[in-house]
């Protein structure tokens, strides 16, 4: 299976730059890497903006950017992954319902709180009547959207789909994440003293992809695999070896790994497994959030299109890779692998 990418769009923390000293693998106080918000008017008519909460604006902006990048006006389908959905409006409606004792609730907040608002507002904006779905399953939300794209494009390889992910962080959610009672079971990366290993993050990324190569294609996804492993194992190299030996994932010739892990020892082991390939802990740049693989995929696209030396400082090998492995794990239960290759 090949998913050829010919357009990308994002609202996120931005690219890692040379000499940027973002920390990772070291405990730090609760911090957040927030998105750099664009001028939404570029892609969103202000008349419609009022009905769109922040996460929907982010999604719509990134989606339109991807379509513009691919020079497409209407995709054949739209699939979104969001692990927590529209937190701001959910909170707004819930708060108002409780404070007003179940009277006088605003319908706008309710309808904007539904998880599928992002995908459906994009469809309304670009008049897309095609296939439309939203995945919301923790560490697999974006990956499920990609796997669904594979299935849809198997039926019609010429179709072009807009696939993306969006997750936001709010101050209220941050307060919950900081609570040790919650943190202990949350599955996020904390050390033994419940200090974060990565900042918390947020972001949106959309990709226009097709089952067939076009003049605009600049890279292709060659595999997407998820492993639900409630009983472990935790060893990343074993997971990778099983993926290859048992599940047939082609891990030959990987020359860069974008890893969602936080342990430098794991990063070393992974590098060794791939004959000294560079391993970048990408969450240093985007923070920890459940659809962060979409950031790593976006980063991969930029690497293939613009060259690695403009993107990452600690990639090991200097030359632009031909094959990137994105490897992430959440709570040691949600393991995902995506391989992306140059075209």
């Amino acid at each position, binding site marked *: 299976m090949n998913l050829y990418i010919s357009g990308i769009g994002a609202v996120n923390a931005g690219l890692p730059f040379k000499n940027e000293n973002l920390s990772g693998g070291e405990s730090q106080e609760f911090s957040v890497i927030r998105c750099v918000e664009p001028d939404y008017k570029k892609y969103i008519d202000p008349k419609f903006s009022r009905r769109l909460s922040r996460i929907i604006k982010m999604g719509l902006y990134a989606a339109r950017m991807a379509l513009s990048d691919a020079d497409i006006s209407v995709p054949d389908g739209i699939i979104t992954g969001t692990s927590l959905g529209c937190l701001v409006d959910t909170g707004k409606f819930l708060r108002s319902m409780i404070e007003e004792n179940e009277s006088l609730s605003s319908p706008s907040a309710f309808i904007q709180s539904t998880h599928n608002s992002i995908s459906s507002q994009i469809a309304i904006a670009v008049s*897309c009547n095609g296939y439309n779905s939203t995945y919301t399953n923790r560490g697999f939300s974006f990956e499920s959207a990609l796997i669904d794209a594979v299935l849809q494009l198997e039926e019609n390889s010429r179709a072009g789909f807009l696939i993306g992910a969006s997750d936001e962080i709010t101050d209220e959610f941050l307060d919950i994440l900081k609570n040790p009672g919650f943190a202990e079971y949350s599955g996020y990366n904390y050390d033994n003293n419940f200090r974060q290993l990565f900042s918390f993050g947020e972001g949106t990324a959309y990709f226009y992809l097709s089952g067939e190569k076009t003049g605009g294609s600049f890279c292709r996804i060659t595999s997407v695999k998820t492993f639900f492993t409630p009983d472990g194992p935790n060893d990343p190299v074993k997971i990778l070896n099983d993926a290859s030996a048992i599940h047939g994932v082609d891990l030959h010739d990987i020359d860069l790994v974008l890893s969602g892990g936080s342990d430098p020892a794991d990063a070393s082991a992974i590098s060794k497994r791939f004959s000294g390939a560079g391993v970048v802990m990408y969450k240093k740049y985007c923070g920890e959030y459940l659809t962060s693989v979409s950031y790593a995929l976006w980063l991969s696209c930029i690497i293939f299109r613009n060259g690695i030396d403009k993107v990452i400082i600690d990639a090991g090998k200097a030359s632009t890779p031909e094959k990137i492995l994105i490897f992430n794990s959440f709570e040691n239960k949600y393991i995902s692998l995506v391989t992306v290759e140059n075209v």
Partner: protein
Amino acid sequence: MKQRVFITGIGIISAIGRSADETINSLCSCNTGISGMRFLDSRLKDIFPVGEVKYSNSDLSDMLSVHENKYSRTFLLSLAAAREASGDRLKDYNPARVGYVSGNTVGGMDLTEKYFQSLHSGGEADITSLLQHDCGYSAQKAAECLNISGYVTTISTACSSSANSIMHAAMLIRSGVIDAAVAGGVDSLTKFTLNGFNSLKILDTQLCSPFDENRNGLNLGEGAAYLFLESEKSASDHMQDVICEVKGFGNSCDAFHQTAMSEDGMGPKLAMRGALKSSGLEPRDIHYINLHGTGTSNNDLSEGISIEDVFTGTIPPYSSTKSYTGHTLGAAGAIEAVISALTIKNGIIFPNINYKTRMKELSADPVSSLLKTNDIRNVMSNSFGFGGNNSSIIYSKVV
């Protein structure tokens, strides 16, 4: 060669029963499960009738032998139905080749709203209850309980969530990614959704009358339903009795408005036509449509007009079983899938109860009394959600 996808197990819990057997008995008795709220402690409890599952969380925990007072109602309902659907067969399947695909809209909101209400009232609140808030929690937990590890995901597309789950699972099986799946969905009654729908002013204070000229809105419901889906080869290898087949499906987006359906029903028409095309059937081959039929002015008009267009001259019998269960939101597609399977298996069309007057825009009445017939081979089940997420699935007898 793509594998055919068969339904070999069903599980359901709703206002009309906690198993497929109880459900069919209720359906045949033509008694609605919609009544006053017993368990949800809402200020609106005496205003809006609901399709509430007739068991408390404590009852459900006992039935499932899980820790009382710890779990969200969403998870409890989903486990009840998922266990019934899979029975004891999973021990004979490779867990890495079985998937769990679920749909829901508000996750563990029943616990979340209690948590914030407690804080607001200055009481004690357990923050770990928020770990069950997100939509994916119940799928993860149920997959762990059932020892399923091949593929786990959750879909949230409003009222078409579990229809899309069934579709996605069917495509995964057809493609050989997995051999079998527990697929369906769940939603529990919450003050959040009750107040949400009330803010849109589309709740009926009486028993709903889907597709009736004088309809006044919907009744919210809750429940869960799952199908055990497997490839033809897997069903044969495991010697499973086949109930019916997932023959085809269509998914489209109305792309019109966040809550209202377009008056010409563009989205529903595309979904129904997509289902027909994907199943290789003609409109005249459909023997019954299980409507989305919520009882709202907008949905029923849009759906009714769409059916008149897609099935011109050959409109099959149709009915909305939401008059029994209420509108179960994320669970609706799956609950109605189970009801469609029961229709095929038993040759019975369950009526639109509480129907009196034909809609002036339509040329047909829904089936309004129990109809036993020998020839139900292909059933279409519609699920049309907020945000224009429209899905239609065709279930067929296997001959």
